[in-house]
């Protein structure tokens, strides 16, 4: 099992090398600009002069979306071991997970009723 992780690590290292390799190749191949100018490095705002910083404040609904995502992920994380032993443990495991999911879906229903996920 750990050897599989090592293989995965080696795989990731190879992908990293590819990413760096492309950047390196580009450095070698790149045609140098004859002159550099400040305007070239302006951020793109459809040709207008950039106005202020790009940082802006975002709406709280982003937070609700992320919240929902992690909570459903938690659900999934507990359902993975459950899925493996479902056949073995039978009805008891089934009922336990169903009640788990149903309780979580109550939260979903609440959020739906409160329209907290409304992207409007």
């Amino acid at each position, binding site marked *: 099992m750990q050897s599989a992780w090592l*293989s995965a690590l080696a795989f990731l290292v*190879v992908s990293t090398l*590819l990413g760096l390799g492309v950047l390196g190749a*580009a450095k070698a191949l*790149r*045609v140098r600009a004859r002159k550099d100018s400040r305007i070239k490095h302006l*951020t793109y705002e459809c040709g207008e002069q950039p106005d202020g910083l790009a940082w802006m404040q975002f709406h709280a609904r982003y937070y609700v979306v992320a919240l929902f995502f992690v909570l459903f992920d938690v659900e999934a994380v507990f359902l*993975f071991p459950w899925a493996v032993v*479902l056949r073995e443990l039978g009805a008891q495991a089934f009922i336990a997970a169903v009640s788990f999911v149903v309780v979580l879906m109550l939260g979903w229903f609440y959020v739906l009723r409160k329209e907290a996920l409304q992207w409007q």
Partner: protein
Amino acid sequence: MSALGHGALYGAVLIAVMLSTVAVGIWFERKFAGRMQSRLGPTIVGPMGLLQPLADVVKLLQKEDIIPAGADRALFNLAPVLATIFSLGVAAVLPLSPHMIAADLDIGVVYMLAVGGLMVVPTFMAGWASNNKFALLGGMRAVAQSISYGVPLVLAVLVPVILSGSLSLAGIVRWQSEHHWFALWPVIPGLPAFALYFMAMLAEANRIPFDIPEAESELVAGVTTEYTGAKFTLFYLAEYVHTLVGSAIGAALFFGGWDGPFAPGLHWMVAKTLALFVVVYWVRWTLLRLRSDQLMELCWKWLTPIGVALVLIAAAWVQFAPQGAL
């Protein structure tokens, strides 16, 4: 050491194969898209325009590398490399044939979801580091979309996991080759779960109809607005690889992966992957982009509860289906 060598070798070969597939895929997409719009597509570079992707790459690599003023340089440079790593890294657990798998993790499904989910990091990083309003908006939207559709994705993936009782992708495929493809039987959690997976995969890879983050008409190019040359190439590559690997995983989870008569397993796996890959482009060049609110509503009001229902149906199937029906 041998495990490291195994992973590195498979990584090198698989990545080379994927890159050439992506190159041909780009050509194919442009040709196919052209045909669907009653155009010819690329014709000039090479026979039937086959060398067009090569020309594109050479062109892109020669471009001047511009970092916008006020950008967070370190993160700006790191983001495309991370995108490459995470999109390619998912392929480590891909079972190509019964004995061809780079890293046979016993929790392959979790690894795949986790590493695929990490794609939000470079996306946001690029958007944030560019110091550009379009990029930041695109990045935030991309992350919001990606995590939203992560929920149906996880739920859809849970269905084959429950039906086979295994978290290893190879184990799931083996189960299917011994019993049935999950897309075919049991039809009710199987086929809708595949549809769910497919939609979520499109959304994760920012493919039309879920390409809000890129939304050319409103956000220029989303997170890649400020990227030029090689770094843009990496993002572009990551997007294609994401789609390709997503197709391969869909083929493995729902269509029996390497399983098939007459031909060796590898051929079947490749054929199924490419078939799904083509469907992605077919959808891409047919449908229109959804609006942000439609996207979110579709995900949270429809796909999520459907996914939960499918998970429960799959569990009930495992519990209550007569032994003969399995």
